[in-house]
């Protein structure tokens, strides 16, 4: 006889859930974690484990609930903040995601977690999504203004054509080629609209900026834009999660091969500010650059 649920402890149920999870049986894993939580609702790892399963099941609202429970039980539950950020990105709520992602990143660095690079990527992903939302709003707004002006040009040309037809009606003259005069008016209107579009495009610096990330903002190991640059003893800057990855393998400066440890790293605040400002303006494409 298998042990009944009552006889199984929360820890045993968690282990059973982990086993189902490893085998890809998300539904059974979810059930076991839920049973475990029913017995012991004070263990935050039960909530982060269930959040991970529910992420697989695409139940993002439930992921956020579980992450919130985990964070309330343990303020340092890095995974709670991390998965909440991921779920919020899935729900297209980038500003909230960014808040959780920042906290997750700080905890990951403080805990020297191997996930720090992945967490940093979620920060970037949230920034990218937020930028895209803002950019879409901006284009919609600009386009409505352009649309109004084009409407004016169109109405003006229609009025001219109408006037012309009325003149023709009042004093018919076989000499005039009405259709070709109307064609000229239409052509003029088309040229004016093209010009309007050009002016709007030229007045939009975003569309004309070269889409390149300057080398000094790029990490020379990951080849991606930095979010948390730190400087080594020789003055070269790297992105913190990337250089921490390297230092876990070898306590050496990548360029000079001199001894280097995490405690030697200092934040490069000025460069961090420049990177942040660059991302503020360009996250939509710079994250994947």
């Amino acid at each position, binding site marked *: 006889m298998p042990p009944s649920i009552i006889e199984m402890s929360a820890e045993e149920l968690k282990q059973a859930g982990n086993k189902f999870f490893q085998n890809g049986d998300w539904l059974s894993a979810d059930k076991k974690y839920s049973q475990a939580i029913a017995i012991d609702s004070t263990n935050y790892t039960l909530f982060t484990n269930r959040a991970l399963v529910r992420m697989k099941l695409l139940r993002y609202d439930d992921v956020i609930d579980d992450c919130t429970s985990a964070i309330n039980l343990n303020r340092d539950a890095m995974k709670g903040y991390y998965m909440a950020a991921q779920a919020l990105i899935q729900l297209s709520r980038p500003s909230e995601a960014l808040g959780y992602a920042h906290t997750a990143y700080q905890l990951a660095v403080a805990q020297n977690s191997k996930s720090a690079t992945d967490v940093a990527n979620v920060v970037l992903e949230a920034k990218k999504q937020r930028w895209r939302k803002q950019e879409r709003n901006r284009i919609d707004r600009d386009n409505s203004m352009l649309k109004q002006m084009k409407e004016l040009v169109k109405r003006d040309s229609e009025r001219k054509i109408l006037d012309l037809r009325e003149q023709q009606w009042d004093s018919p003259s076989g000499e005039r080629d009405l259709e070709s005069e109307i064609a000229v008016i239409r052509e003029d209107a088309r040229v004016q609209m093209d010009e309007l579009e050009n002016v709007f495009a030229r007045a939009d610096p975003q569309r004309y900026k070269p889409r390149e990330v300057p080398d000094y903002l790029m990490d*020379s190991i990951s080849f991606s834009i930095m979010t948390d640059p730190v400087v080594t003893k020789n003055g070269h800057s790297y992105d913190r999660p990337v250089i921490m990855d390297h230092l876990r*393998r070898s306590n050496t400066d990548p360029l000079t091969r001199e001894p280097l440890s995490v405690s030697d790293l200092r934040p490069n605040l000025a460069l961090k500010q420049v990177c942040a400002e660059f991302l503020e303006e360009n996250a939509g494409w710079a994250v994947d650059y």
Partner: protein
Amino acid sequence: MFAQKRLGKELSNIHKSLPPGISIASASDFSNWKMDIQVLDTNPLYADQIYRLNFKFSGSYPIEAPEVTFIKEDGRDIPMHPHIYSNGVICLDLLGTNWSPVQNVESVCMSIQSMLTSNTKNERPPGDETFVRSGYRSPRNINFVYDDNTV
């Protein structure tokens, strides 16, 4: 991790320009690339020869070094060198203990190119036959002794 993104960028740089004597033979994915190198001066050991390097990248590249070996393919031979075994395994500290993640495919090719250029000895490493017979293919499993810095 960032292996794919970094290799993608390395590849687009490689397609733009490469130093003389180094060219790309194939790179259809982010786990295995082949590079051709040749020695440009008149070193009689390597004159008019093209050699092929096989790069294997793990998901942890560039934190982990790539696995780099010479391979026999398309008529390319294994170059004669006191640090290169006849099965293509290269004994180079840069690819092992002295790997640094700021190195890249191009810089590794250049190091190996200059290792050949400066060599004058027409010989294999000591114990080549035993080494090759032992069947080691993966340089990562070997603890080389980098005792000779003159070649």
